[in-house]
C-alpha cells in the first residue's frame, strides 16, 4: 500500500502583472491510500485545482508552508516529471495541444519513461493494451494517430486524459474536473475507464463541483473545500447532502466565514457547460 499525504499545505500564486502574491490554500490536510477513492467538492475559486496542480508540481504554484509526501518521503523538491515517475498522474482540466507528436507515440514515450532502457515496452504489447483501452473508452483508433490533443473537442480531450491514465497505470490519479464538458453518455464511458483501474494499488482523488460524477465513480470519502481549506469530510452521503443544501447552506451550517466567490454564478456555469460531441 502507498500513501499520498498532504499536511498543512499553504500555497500562493504570484500575479505577474500586479507583482502581488495571493494565498490560495490556507492549510490543507488530506491522506489518500491506494485502494481508496476520494472526492473533493467545492465551489469555484476555492483552491481545488490549485491543490491538484501543486501536488503534481506545476511550477506556477508556490508552497509557503506544509508538505506533500508519498510513503513518508517529501515530493515538494522534485520536478513534475519525477513526481510522475513516482506514480502521480493528473488528468488535467485543460490539456495542452501539441502538434507533430501523435497520441500513440506520446503514450509509448510516457510508458517507457518509467521503464529501464533495456526493458522498453514492445510495440506489440503496447498496441494490444492500447486497443483494449480505446474500446473501453469508445474511442477510435484514428484518435491515437492524431496529434496530441490537437483539434480534439472538449470531450475527446477528457477521454484522452483517461486513456493516458489507463495506459500509464499510476499509483495515484488526480482527476481535475474530468466531468466538465461531458454529456451523460460520455461521462458514463469515462467513469467506466476510471472504475476499471480500481485495484488495491491504485488511489483516486476526484475534483468536481457536482455530485453527478459520484453516481458513476463511488467515493469512499468526500471532502468539501472552501476558501482554501477542507471544511468537512464524510462518506458519499455528504455529496448528496451538498446537492440538497448547496455550498452556501453548508457554509452557514458550519458557521464558516468563507467568501464563496461564485455564490451566485455557480449554477449558471453548469447550465452553459458544453457537451461532448
Amino acid at each position, binding site marked *: 500500500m502507498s500513501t499520498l499525504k498532504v499536511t498543512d499545505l499553504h500555497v500562493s500564486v504570484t500575479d505577474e502583472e500586479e507583482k502581488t502574491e495571493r494565498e490560495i490554500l490556507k492549510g490543507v490536510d488530506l491522506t489518500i491510500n491506494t485502494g481508496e477513492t476520494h472526492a473533493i467538492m467545492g465551489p469555484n475559486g476555492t483552491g481545488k485545482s490549485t491543490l491538484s496542480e501543486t501536488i503534481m508540481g*506545476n511550477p506556477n504554484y508556490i508552497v509557503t508552508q506544509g508538505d506533500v509526501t508519498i510513503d513518508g518521503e517529501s515530493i515538494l523538491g522534485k520536478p513534475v516529471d519525477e513526481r510522475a*515517475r513516482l506514480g502521480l498522474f493528473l488528468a488535467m482540466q485543460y490539456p495542452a495541444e*501539441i502538434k507533430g507528436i501523435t497520441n500513440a507515440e506520446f503514450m509509448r*514515450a510516457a510508458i517507457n519513461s518509467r521503464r529501464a532502457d533495456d526493458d522498453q515496452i514492445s510495440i506489440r504489447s503496447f498496441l494490444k493494451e492500447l486497443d483494449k483501452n480505446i474500446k473501453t473508452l469508445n474511442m477510435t483508433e484514428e484518435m491515437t494517430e492524431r496529434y496530441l490533443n490537437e483539434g480534439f473537442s472538449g470531450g475527446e480531450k477528457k477521454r484522452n486524459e483517461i486513456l493516458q491514465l489507463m495506459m500509464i497505470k499510476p499509483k495515484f490519479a488526480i482527476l481535475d474536473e474530468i466531468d466538465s464538458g461531458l454529456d451523460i453518455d460520455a461521462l458514463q464511458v469515462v467513469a467506466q475507464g476510471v472504475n476499471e483501474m480500481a485495484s488495491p494499488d491504485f488511489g483516486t482523488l476526484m475534483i468536481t463541483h457536482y455530485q453527478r460524477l459520484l453516481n458513476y465513480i463511488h467515493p469512499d470519502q468526500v471532502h468539501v473545500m472552501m476558501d482554501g481549506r477542507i471544511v468537512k469530510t464524510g462518506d458519499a452521503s455528504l455529496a448528496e447532502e451538498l446537492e440538497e443544501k448547496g455550498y452556501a447552506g453548508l457554509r452557514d451550517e458550519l458557521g464558516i466565514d468563507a467568501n464563496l466567490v461564485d455564490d451566485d454564478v455557480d449554477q449558471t456555469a453548469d447550465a452553459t457547460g458544453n457537451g461532448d460531441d
Partner: protein
Amino acid sequence: MPKSAVLALDPVLLSAAKFDDEPQWLTDLRQSSWDKAKELALPEFAKINYRHWPLLEFAQDGQTNTNIPDDIQAETESYNFVSVGKTTVKSAIPDDLVKQGVVFCDLQTAAKKHAELLSKYLFTKAIKPDEDRLTAVNASLMDSGVFLYVPHDVSIKEPISLLQVQDSRQKTNFVNHNVIVTDDNSSVQVLQRTETIGDAENPASVAVEVISGPGSHIKFSSLDSLSEKTNAYFNRRGHLEKDSEIDWTMGVLNDGNTIADFDSDLKGTGSHAEVQTVAISTGKQTQGIDTSVTNYGKHSEGNILQRGVLLEKSALVFNGVGKIIHGAHGSKAQQENRILMLSPEARGDANPILLIDENDVIAGHAASVGRVDQKQLYYLMSRGLTKEVAQRLVILGFLGVVLTEIPIAAVRNQMIAMIERKLINGQRTE
C-alpha cells in the same frame, strides 16, 4: 562592400586543385575564375556577419590522405557514390541505367570522358563563376564532386545517393562541386550526404548545380553535418526550365559556422520549386541560410518552408527571398520561416524578403521566432517524460511539418536520427 580581410589566395592553390590530365577548357575556366576572384566582392547575407570567418583560408600545402577509414568503408554499400576528400571511393549505378545513357561519375572523370556534356552545364546555367568571390573560388579550386546526367524520357526509380566526406584528419582542402542534369521529361531522386572526419580546422566550399530540363522532375535531398571546426559555404542552385519541378529537402545540421545559399531560378513557364529546409544550431555556431526563389517564367511557382531550432549560444538566420521578375504573369511565391529558441542565449532571426515586380501574381509570407511553450513542456513532463525528452518531442513536432514532406522515407528517418543526435549533444551542455 568590403572585400574580405581573410583573402589568402596563393597561386599554388590553383595548380594543386587541378585534376590529373585535366582538359584545357577546365583549366581555362579555373584560371579565368581565379583572375576575377580577387576583384569580386563576397556575397551579401542579410543579418550575418561572416567576413571574419576563415572561409578562404585554404591550406597551401593541402595534403591528400588516401587511407579510407573503416566506418566510411562500411557505409559505401548504402551509397552510389562515396568520396573522402578528393579521393573517389565508390562510383556505381545499376547497369540498366548505364544502358539507358545515364552518365554518373566523379567530376574528374566527367571532365575527360564527357567533356562536351559537362562543359555545357558546368558553371553555365545555374551558378555563374563570376557572381561573387565565393562562387569564383569554388570554380577555380573545385577538387571533388559528381556529374549526373539523366537523358530525356528516362525515369530513375531508386534514389541516387552520394556520400561526400570532408577529410579533416589533416589540413586538406574541400572544394566540392556537383552537377545534376535531367533532360526532357526525365526524373530522378538524389540524396547528398556531407560530413567530416578528423579534427583539423578547414574551410569547406560545397556547390550543387541542379538543371532540370523541360518537363523533368528532380527530388533533391541533402543532409549536411560538417564538423565544429569547419567553416562552410554551401551553394545549391536550381535552374528550372519549362514545366520542370525541383523538390528540395535540406537538413542543415552542421556543427560549425555555415553560410548557405539555396536558390531556385524558375526560368521556364510553368516551372515549380518546393524548398524545405530544417536547420539546427548548437554550441557557439552561427548558421545563416539564404533561401531564394526567383520567378522568371509565367505561371511559375515557388514555395519555401523552413524550420530552425537553436540551442545554447548559437545563432541561426533564415533569409527567405521571394523575387518575381517583371513579366512572370500568374506566378506564385509563398514562404514560411519559423524559428524555435530553446536557450535565452541563442539568437534567431527569420526574415522574409519579397521583391515583386509584377502585378498578376500571388505572393505571401509568414515568419516567427519563438520559444518552447512552457505549458506544453509541463504537460509532457507530467506524464513522466524528462525535460530533455519533452523538449525533443516538442522540437520534432515543430520540425514535423517539414519532416513529413521528405519524399524518401529512408532520408526522413536518417534526418530524424541526426536531428535527435544533435539535440541530445546540444542539451548535454545546457
